[in-house]
């Protein structure tokens, strides 16, 4: 970046220096000014049609659109000058004459850019004295998307996404003038794997998600940064929760991973987070029956099982478990000859988002394969299952044990099952420890490009379930091999100290966009 020519300009009295070729709208963001806009979106080609971002540029007689006007040296930009404010107020008035004021029943209310800007810069009354607004019935665009034409402001973000990003141009602007609407090819539906993004892109409640319809009002939602566990791409997401229930997943922009987008598989990959059939208490085997117990008892029993055994150990871990969990499980069996294994679902082929190089729904349908591999786990589940026989310690973390019998675990006297739900085979374990799922804990995952990314706790864990890092930390403490861990951050710090692949990384320097392992190596 250092050799890129910088241009210095003044926006609303704030001087900023930005690379040549930057638009005024983007430069304004750096000056701390958000220029109101609808059709502009950083992930789409510029259209310049909504005319909402009209601003004053000193020395230019006409108002300019911030989204398409490049910065120039010494430029003086006024965003909130009288003329610009009047023009934007007028755009809002024009948009509202055919926009139904059905905000009380609109899914978008509370996160609607029309609503927001009208509150910010619009008129408090209407001058539209004509009888009726344009009316067209709701249309089903297929897959998860409904089109409500009455609310449409023709910003064309959806059209440009399908044409230039998904590269499946099935949407268009049909008709002209104020009869215009978004049309869909008569033989097409929005069943493209990445089509759901049009719902996020829509600045108003015109394209809405059937899945989210009437589930919550925007102001009832809490948003938590997370990472999608649907595949090894590691798309950044926000988990939207209402009263401790995940109700929606939306993309969280990360220029290095998923830009502004997620696939529909990822978007719908949240119901498991809300499962009701969870293990809510530690369970201990008494006479072949699992009985609930408290954590103190469970932890000392776990320590007993681990310390009491010697020889060979097997760890079967889910490739969606956090690095922290994988690291601590590995540390727990450090005195054993250990077989560390995971298994991962693989499907045929990837589904790329054509317009964004390096972004696809990956064939490898798990989020932390790279982390598991870096920590010494092998993708050889079958061999590990074979090794259970004769092992003196078996630890299973969040694997559903499909294909493994209850007897197999029963035969291994010292089997500990650490998980969120209790598959039948796990009933053969000597001890069952309830843990939080990805939505209920902090942690990190490593995507296919070696990017270590944090995810945050979005909801509380049920009953007595605790994060894996806490559970394993306590067991290690019981064994006299460590102190209690109070946060995932501490678990990560231990890992960064012990594991070369993570050296130099910390929660602080990962930030919310993550860092790659190779970046970390370079900076150490």
């Amino acid at each position: 970046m250092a050799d890129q020519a910088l241009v210095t300009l003044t926006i609303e009295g704030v001087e900023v220096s930005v690379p040549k070729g930057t638009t005024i709208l983007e430069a304004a963001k750096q000056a701390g000014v958000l220029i109101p806009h609808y059709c502009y979106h950083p992930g789409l080609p510029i259209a310049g049609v909504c005319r909402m971002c009209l601003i004053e540029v000193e020395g230019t007689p006409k108002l300019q659109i911030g989204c398409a006007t490049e910065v120039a040296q010494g430029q003086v930009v006024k965003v909130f000058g009288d003329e610009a404010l009047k023009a934007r107020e007028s755009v809002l008035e024009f948009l509202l004459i055919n926009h139904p004021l059905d905000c009380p029943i609109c899914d978008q209310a509370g996160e609607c850019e029309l609503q927001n800007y009208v509150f910010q810069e619009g008129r408090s009354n209407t001058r539209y004295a004509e009888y009726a607004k344009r009316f067209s019935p709701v249309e089903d665009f297929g897959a998860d998307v409904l089109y409500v034409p009455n609310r449409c402001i023709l910003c064309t973000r959806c059209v440009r996404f399908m044409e230039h990003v998904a590269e499946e141009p099935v949407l268009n602007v049909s008709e002209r003038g104020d009869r215009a609407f978004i049309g869909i090819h008569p033989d097409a539906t929005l069943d493209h794997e990445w089509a759901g993004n049009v719902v996020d892109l829509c600045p108003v409640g015109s394209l809405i998600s059937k899945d989210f319809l009437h589930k919550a009002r925007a102001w009832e939602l809490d948003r938590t940064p997370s990472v999608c566990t649907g595949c090894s791409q590691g798309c950044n997401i926000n988990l939207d929760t209402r009263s401790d229930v995940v109700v929606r997943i939306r993309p969280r922009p990360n220029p290095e991973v998923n830009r502004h987008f997620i696939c529909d598989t990822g978007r719908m990959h949240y119901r498991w987070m809300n499962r009701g059939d969870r293990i809510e208490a530690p369970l201990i085997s008494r006479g072949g029956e699992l009985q609930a117990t408290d954590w103190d008892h469970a932890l000392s029993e776990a320590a007993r099982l681990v310390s009491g055994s010697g020889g060979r150990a097997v760890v079967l871990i889910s490739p969606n478990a956090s690095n922290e969990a994988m690291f601590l499980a590995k540390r727990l069996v450090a005195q054993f000859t250990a077989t560390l294994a995971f298994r991962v679902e693989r499907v045929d082929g990837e589904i790329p988002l054509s317009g964004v190089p390096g972004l696809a729904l990956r064939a490898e349908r798990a989020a932390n394969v790279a982390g598991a591999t870096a920590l010494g786990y092998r993708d050889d589940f079958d061999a590990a299952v074979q090794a259970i026989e004769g092992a003196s310690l078996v630890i299973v973390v969040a694997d559903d044990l499909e294909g493994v019998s209850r007897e197999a675990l029963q035969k291994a006297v010292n089997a500990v099952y650490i998980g969120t739900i209790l598959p039948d085979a796990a009933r053969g374990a000597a001890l069952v420890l309830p843990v939080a799922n990805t939505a209920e804990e902090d942690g990190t995952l490593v995507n296919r490009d070696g990017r270590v990314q944090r995810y945050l706790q979005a909801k509380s864990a049920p009953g007595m379930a605790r994060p894996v890092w806490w559970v394993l930390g306590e067991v290690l403490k019981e064994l006299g091999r460590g102190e209690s861990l109070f946060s995932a951050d501490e678990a990560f710090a231990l890992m960064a100290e012990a594991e070369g692949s993570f050296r130099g990384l910390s929660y602080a320097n990962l930030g919310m966009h993550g860092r790659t392992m190779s970046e970390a190596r370079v900076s150490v």
Partner: protein
Amino acid sequence: MGYPHKPHEKETVILSEYFGDAEARSYDGWVKRGGYKALKASLEMQPAEVVEIVKSSGLRGRGGAGFPTGVKWSFMPKEKSKPHYLCCNADEAEPGTFKDREIMRWTPHALIEGCAIAQYAIQAEITYIYIRGEFTEPLRIMQAALDDAYGNGVLGDNAMGSGRRLDMYIHRGAGAYICGEETALMNSIEGQRGNPRIRPPFPAASGVFGMPTTINNVETLAAVPHIINRGPEWYKSLSLNNEKSCGTKLFSVSGHVQRPGNYEVTMGFPLGELINDLCGGMRQGRTLKACIPGGSSVPILNREETESCLLDYEGCVEMGTMLGSGGVIVFDDSADMVYQTMRLARFYAHESCAQCTQCREGTGWTVRILERILAGQGEPKDLDLLLDLADQMTGKTICVLSDSCAAVVISTIKRFRNEFEAYMAGTREPGVVAAGVG
């Protein structure tokens, strides 16, 4: 004009010399009338020399904007790194304008020759002639002439024996007014929806298919062979008012005159004379009330302004209007100016491409207010509202369609406010206005 009437003695007949002369449509007939000499002469010059001649002739764009043609040509990259294109804008759809239609109907080779010279001057491989979809007869005639030109070696891989390749295609529009806007026209040629593009980039940098492109009006290009044949000084000398406006201009006169039609006069010709002498004045027993001198998109003039307006770029600006495309629409005292305004606004509402908010919503809203006024349900504050909307529809959009609608409203209210107020006061009988747009 020559067709269907004999040219009036006050006309300067250059472009329209062969209007009505069917033989001029054929290649042989055109050559017999001195055709393709200018192209041959041009091909023997350097392209830059041709540009220089047109520059010094003072020729300005006849499509409406009046930009100097030679200067526009000189914007094309001198060093060729990509293919260049010439587009001929024959999407003549401005209400009140029908001059390009006659050029194509009667002198198709004049246009082909002009295109070929321009194409050579800007070093373009290909010319697209974009003809309005409704122009079925001009299309047929142009296609026949083009085939004829290819057949006689005017175009093709050895144009007029010059060793240069010149190709020309006709592209038929599908009936959208907005496709006459140059960037929308280029989108249309590319097979896209005819939406105007944001500028920059300008066509000379990135036009049709992203390549350097020049786009000129039919009448502009048809004048080029005459300039080559008779020299830029001759062309420059054709000026009655301001030396910045020279040459001849075709005016399409429609409305309440005795003899509507196309008239070719020297730049600076008085509008009053055009109406009263050339067109034979108003209908029997009627008097002049108003006139739109340059196609529906320019501000309307009242009687006094009309009678003192000189028809060139500067003369029209002096009267608060524009020369535009030369579509002269004349209204007599029977015209209801509120209705006329609504009718024109409807046209713009119908033709808005729907990209820019102000245009998409503003044109429709304007129509609905005017309809309400015509129905006798207007309120005094509606005029201020109309003017405020018009102000917000001016200078804020990608193209000038929105501005054109606003210009109609602003100029009519300014000059005929009493007619609007009569509807509001109930002193004028409410009109029955068919609902709907278009």
